[in-house]
């Protein structure tokens, strides 16, 4: 890993931590419902600097942000870690298998979907253990994920285009 890459990862992680922490200040109707703004940074990193950088940024973001918020190693941290890692893996896999099939928005949707699936599965295994409660809430979570995923995809797309223009 080159020095320049380290700087980039540090900078991107700082943005991601800031977004993650900011997001957790926003009130939401369901405890683990999030806008997924930090996914914007993961996606931008993935598309500009590759899978490894994206995974490093995600891990740094989840761990540092949970330390700042005070949820480190708590239930919210486990959900956040599982969701973040799974969505980064899914986006990276799709991008490496079929790089041209999805645009930034499609990748963002995949990220949001897998984030939600991982969180629902984790919530079922670790905390709720009532399949009907999970099944009842899943469609709502996936619908909201589709909407926020689209918005985040649009933002990521604009961000990437602007970054490429300035370089």
């Amino acid at each position, binding site marked *: 890993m080159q020095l320049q890459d380290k700087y980039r990862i540090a900078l991107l992680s700082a943005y991601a931590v800031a977004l993650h922490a900011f997001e957790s200040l926003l009130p939401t109707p369901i405890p683990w419902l999030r806008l997924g703004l930090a996914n914007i940074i993961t996606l931008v990193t993935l598309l500009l600097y590759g899978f490894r950088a994206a995974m490093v940024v995600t891990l740094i973001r989840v761990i540092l942000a949970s330390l700042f918020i005070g949820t480190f190693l708590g239930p919210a941290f486990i959900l956040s870690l599982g969701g973040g890692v799974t969505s980064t893996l899914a986006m990276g896999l799709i991008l490496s298998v079929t790089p041209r099939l*999805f645009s930034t928005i499609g990748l963002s949707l995949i990220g949001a979907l897998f984030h939600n699936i991982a969180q629902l599965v984790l919530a079922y295994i670790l905390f709720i253990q009532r399949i009907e409660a999970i099944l*009842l809430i899943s469609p709502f979570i996936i619908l909201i994920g589709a909407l926020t995923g689209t918005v985040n995809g649009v933002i990521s797309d604009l961000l990437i285009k602007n970054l490429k223009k300035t370089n």
Partner: protein
Amino acid sequence: MNLKGLLSSTTIADKFLLSILILLSFSGILFIKEVLPKGCEVQIEVNGRLVYVLPIEDNRIVSVKGPEGRTVIEIKDHRLRVIESPCHNKLCIKQGWIENGAIVCLPNRVLITIGNHEYSNIVDAITG
């Protein structure tokens, strides 16, 4: 940053994925209640004694006898209501149709609850 450039950069797979997700979640919201096992039953207690456990699926009219007289309960289309009660304030009748929760008629000591009673024997608190 114009919207046209953005729209042209989306692929067919994007639109397909988005429509599938929205379709899936909407149909999930609409149909998941039908698919799930209800597990719901109606319990009717009179004077603290369980007299009826009925599935909410069956439409029927049940009459129970309390200290004040006859309370008649109608179960229909996964809902229930009290249609006749000897109490004078008739709060239980005014409550109308309920799909979940409970109707209580204190004067006649009738307690009607809808729920998944599998979980109801877990005591969270005992007071008094």
